[in-house]
């Protein structure tokens, strides 16, 4: 008997969310099949790669990253270099300087930087703005930056359970930008946050989720199964409150674990620290992409090259 290819029941599609405007616009999501299952149906938008840029630069960066940003003195210059790395789809600007426990730069100053970075990127790549992990300060920075970049269709990461009321109101409602909804590795919490933000009046089609992240090996199986289950609920059960595309900021986790930071002198058996960091970043990124993440954030040009090649090969 000849092989008969099973035809899977078509699932519901993930929302298509466009970041950026005009020539630099990219679109996340849109698929109604399992990750990379292009044989089961069409995948209109392949997963996208963002490159992480910190407004303070990266301290003790491995050679490959230090080299990339050599000679740059402003976040705008760094972003322009980052945008030119092959395989990069968008640029993620992280406002580390806003941290009240660090430099505590004002929201107004951050907004000026955001504008300069956006101008430097021009039509090349869309911008994603990431906060300093202080909920209150993030809300202020996002408010000013969203105002300064009105009309640029910028994704702000993130609006969390602790600050969604202010972030979603300014980013999503007042300035009509894209809202990043961040929850901590739990399908119910992810769904609750989406419901809360949409109930405030933000269109669900303007939301991108960050459902939590971990470096591979650091409780990562929870991240994997959370993404996997969210996609199943969104596609198989047509749960409209979970049909937002998923963005996973991989690099902010992987470059902090000991595999990526312990020096070769301290861990002679482990080999070169840069190779380890790149490997950690690639493994984690490939895993979240295979779970269903629609976009990842990476830091090292080599990781970007490898992940980009994988996406192209499987698309």
């Amino acid at each position, binding site marked *: 008997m000849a092989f008969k290819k099973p035809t899977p029941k078509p699932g519901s599609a993930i929302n298509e969310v466009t970041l950026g405007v005009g020539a630099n616009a990219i679109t996340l999501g849109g698929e109604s099949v399992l990750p990379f299952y292009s044989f089961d149906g069409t995948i209109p938008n392949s997963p996208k790669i963002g490159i992480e840029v910190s407004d303070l630069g990266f301290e003790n960066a491995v050679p490959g990253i230090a080299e990339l940003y050599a000679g740059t003195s402003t976040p705008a210059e760094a972003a322009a270099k980052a945008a030119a790395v092959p395989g990069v789809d968008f640029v993620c600007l992280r406002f580390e300087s806003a941290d009240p426990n660090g430099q505590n730069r004002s929201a107004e100053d951050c907004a000026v930087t955001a504008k300069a970075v956006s101008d430097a990127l021009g039509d090349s790549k869309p911008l994603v703005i990431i906060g300093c992990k202080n909920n209150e300060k993030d809300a202020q920075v996002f408010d000013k930056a969203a105002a300064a970049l009105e009309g640029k269709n910028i994704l702000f990461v993130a609006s969390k*359970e602790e600050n969604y009321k202010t972030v979603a109101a300014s980013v999503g409602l007042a300035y009509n930008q894209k809202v990043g909804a961040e929850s901590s590795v*739990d399908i119910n919490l992810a769904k609750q946050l989406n419901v809360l933000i949409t109930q405030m009046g933000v269109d669900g089609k303007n939301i991108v989720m960050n459902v939590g992240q971990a470096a591979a090996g650091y409780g990562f199986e929870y991240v994997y199964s959370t993404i996997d289950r969210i996609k199943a609920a969104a596609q198989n059960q047509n749960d409209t409150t979970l049909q937002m595309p998923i963005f996973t900021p991989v690099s902010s986790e992987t470059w902090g674990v000991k595999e990526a930071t312990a020096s070769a002198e301290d861990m002679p058996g482990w080999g070169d620290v840069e190779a380890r960091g790149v490997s950690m970043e690639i493994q984690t990124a490939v895993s979240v992409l295979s779970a269903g993440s629609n976009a990842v954030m990476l830091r090292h040009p080599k990781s970007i090259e490898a992940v980009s090649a994988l996406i192209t090969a499987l698309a």
Partner: protein
Amino acid sequence: MANITFTFEDSRISPVCVSSHAGERLLDIARAAEVAIDAPCNGNGTCRKCKVSIDGKIVLACETVVPADDLTVLVPATAGAFKTDIRTADLSDPRELAIFEKTLSDLAEFPAGKLFTTELVTLEQPNLDDPTNDLERLLTAVNAEHIALSAIRQLPKALRSDGELALLRTKNTVLNIGSPVPEPLGIALDIGTTTVVMLLANLNTGEILSKASAGNAQIRYGADVIHRIVEAERPGGLDKLNNAIIEETIKPLMRKLYAEAGVSGEQVYRFVVSGNTTMNHLFLKIAPDFIRLEPYTPAFNRLGALNASDLGLDVHAHCKLIAAPNVGSYVGGDITAGTLTSLLWKRSSGNVLFADLGTNGELVFGNGEFMFTCACSAGPALEGGDMSCGMRATDGAIDEVTIDAETLEPAFSVIGGGEAKGLCGSGIIDAIAELFRVGAIDGKGKFVKSGSRITETDGIMSYTLSPGVEITEVDIDNFIRTKAAIFSAIRTMLNAVGFTVGDIDEVLIAGGIGSAINFDNAVRVGMFPAIALDKYRYVGNSSLSGAYAMLLSNEAARKVDELARSMTYIELSTDPGYMEEFVAACFLPHTDAGLFCG
């Protein structure tokens, strides 16, 4: 050495002065001095309830280390409130009393008056021809194996008075003698984690002579059973906890009962206690340590007959102590006694869900053919604990609330009709359901509307119902966790035995929520499953009514034993699905909104 003086905002409590060493923790000093400061988190600095005032500054007693100098500490009225009995008074509301009486009339098959008999005898008085001693004379005249000391004490005078002697006796023992002999009395005691309620009854007639209730003085060692067990594990801890329930809570209540009824403890021959497994252990001073450790095994479930006077209680020396049996580590005598009065066991078909919602929520699901049971930690929110303006369903409690969708102005009823002092469980459910209905709060319980009644203090929003009575986002959060624990327990238990909420034919709700509970609102906030509202019924304090039935009848006590043995206990804490159900239920009405509409 320095002197610490505790003064109290509540003027009925006199100041307490103790000496201390510099560096000691204020909360520990207060506890050693028997000064009641509410510390539900047991001094971990997390609940922030142990606030006291030193030189006008508010500090946490658990985070304050005393200096070498003398110190005066003002204890606010709320901190020691469990000591007063004004916040708690079960069966004071006529509606609650009506439910109690209806429950008892349903149990007519267990009539009172069969525990003791009164035998009349005529004894010849001793004379020179027959100088036989008094006791011999009695023993010759009656068929009894044993004459209680209290009876012998009455004998010489009673024998020498004219007329018949009345003997109060059981089959084998003569307990008392008189002409007439005082009626036998008994006490039914419901030990809740938060509240303790007691009834004094005439065992021959079943008449209730007096009733009293108070907060459980163990509260200062933690709001829930786990904190109490941890405290009991410390050196001397078990003594402290036993002392708190016996000496500080039960004995004062008994004195109150006796004074009100004008009787003495000598007349009390039967004492029935129903409480959760941990409360039973602590009441009897039996180490509860292993309740919270895998494999979660209590020291006992069924006790057999004990003697209440062994606990130092002011009762007759032959007073029988009966504890409603436990089923497992977190399903105790309160639920087995309550199951008796729920009449769930009388149903031959259809499935009843019986839920006793106290600090621990316990569920029983089944009918006369099968019974499953489980427990969840609901927290004290529905009994008024852990809420800024919570109180029991008694005078001054707001028990029903509606809120205008346009103006956000509330309308409410107050038990007793006076000034509003706080919110009882049913009022809390109503207030939150209404705030949610009018869109003032979102699914996480955060305020999303503004209005004159919505204010912000230290970043926390609150809604004022009446001067001094408000509901804060923290209260709402506590309530959401409570309702989530209950709803997820219902779902997980039904799941575990292959049923769904659609299989429920009747829901009986017991506990201190209050008879005004609005089931429509309770469903709207996702506390109970969305099934037809006419299937719901509030049955009051079933633990107390069950204990009362056991007090009056040996058959009732035996029935409770039988029920306990026929229940299958499901341990939710080991069920991997429970935590996920809980998180999903921590939302108004539920993360899966489809469960509550259409």
